[in-house]
């Protein structure tokens, strides 16, 4: 039981896929200009990762070693396609909001990383928990970065203005640079820096 709890909690903190393992950076840069797509992307990755982890974990003893990466990729691609088709049929608005991000999930390094490192060696229950934990760990970082970028870049959160007009009248201006992809990398760098400064065990000797 404590083992499951640990599997779930470490990716949220000390073994975060984005901030510690530095995986899935490309999509983290692309979708964090606003909070809403960041949350949607985080949840989609969580669901797909959990499902893919379970499938690979069930198949792990039958997969030929030489083509295991291909098998993992096929499973992820199939799941992503199914999810996107089902969304198009039953939740069209959501699928429009997700647009290309669903396709981006296939190329997310976190998925391949977890499938290869965890699901190939553990049972389905552990893998499910690991998938959800890592997906949420990814989502948390996305939300933090998106919060900072949307707040300082556009003065809004979820598209609603939160910085009062009187501040703008007093000469405050939105920082357009925040909306540019490089800023996501810089904020991410700051988060990694803060995490390492706080947890000395993360620092390489």
């Amino acid at each position, binding site marked *: 039981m404590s083992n499951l709890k640990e599997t779930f909690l470490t990716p949220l903190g000390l073994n975060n896929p984005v901030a510690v393992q530095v995986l899935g950076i490309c999509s983290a840069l*692309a*979708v964090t*200009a*606003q909070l809403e*797509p960041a949350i949607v992307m985080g949840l989609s990755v969580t669901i797909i990762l959990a499902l893919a982890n379970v499938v690979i974990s069930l198949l792990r*003893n*039958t*997969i*030929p*070693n*030489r*083509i295991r990466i*291909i*098998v993992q990729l*096929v499973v992820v691609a*199939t799941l992503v*396609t*199914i999810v996107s*088709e*089902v969304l*198009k*049929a*039953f939740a*069209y608005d959501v699928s*429009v909001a997700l*647009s*290309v991000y669903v396709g981006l999930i296939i190329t997310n390094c976190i998925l391949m990383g977890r499938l290869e490192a965890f699901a190939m060696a553990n049972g389905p229950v552990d893998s499910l928990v690991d998938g959800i934990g890592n997906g949420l760990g990814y989502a948390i970082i996305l939300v933090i970065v998106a919060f900072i*970028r*949307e707040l300082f*870049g*556009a003065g809004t959160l979820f598209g609603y203005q939160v910085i009062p007009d009187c501040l703008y009248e007093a000469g405050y201006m939105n920082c*357009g640079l925040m*909306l*540019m992809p490089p800023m996501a990398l810089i904020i991410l760098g700051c988060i990694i820096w803060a995490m390492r400064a706080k947890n000395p065990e993360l620092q390489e000797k």
Partner: protein
Amino acid sequence: MNTNSNAYTIGYASIMVIIVAFLLAFISSSLKEKQTENVKLDTKKQILSALNIKDGDVAANWENVSDFILNADGTLSAYDGDFRTNYSDTTELHVFESNVNGEKKYVFPVRGAGLWGPIWGYVALNADKNTVYGTYFGHEGETPGLGAEITKPFFTEQFVDKTVSRDGNIVLSVVKNGKVSDSSCEVDGISGGTITSKGVDEMLKSCLKRYSAFLSSAAADATSGATKVENAAQDSAAAKMAAVDSTVCALKDTLVAKADSIVKEVKDELKK
């Protein structure tokens, strides 16, 4: 069993591919109908949104819109095929016509390219076929917060009341943010979304250009249509007559009043 032998590997891969292929084919074909239905509904919603009809049931609102095809001579003929959701084929030019608050509006589909992928839109014009009534813009994967802002009301509402064409040229354009020099036909682009804004500009110009036969037919109606000119002349003559009538009436009133007061004065003096 040896899971590392060549035969097992090839067999595994083949079976996996077959299963996945059947699974995806089955899901895709069983959901196809519902998906096309959704796409059609969404396209209608986008066209209605260009007409500033954003509330209510899409199917019910759509009753009010009719689908036409533009002929080479600038006239419209009714389109009775299946409702189309893709207007990038330019051999068949569609025009949607609708009555909003008793006024005729025309909607033109436009298609173009943004930074990362296709962008599209619907432009609604007033009955004069030269001023914008409303717009809708969509995109597939423009950058959120930058190019993707073209869908936001602050951008689409800028187009309202702008002039579309002048002397046969499309003048409606999107310029760099803050560089508007002619506010009758130019709108501000998105800062940081330059390529998407340029894409919108090119899309409007190239797609609306195809409708120039139809757009200029409105101008032709107004100038060469003799009846219209005559009507206008009659109207103005009638208006002048009415104006003369009213001044005459006013004069008469003042004269009568003056005469009355004089009579009164005379009577007063006689009494004295």
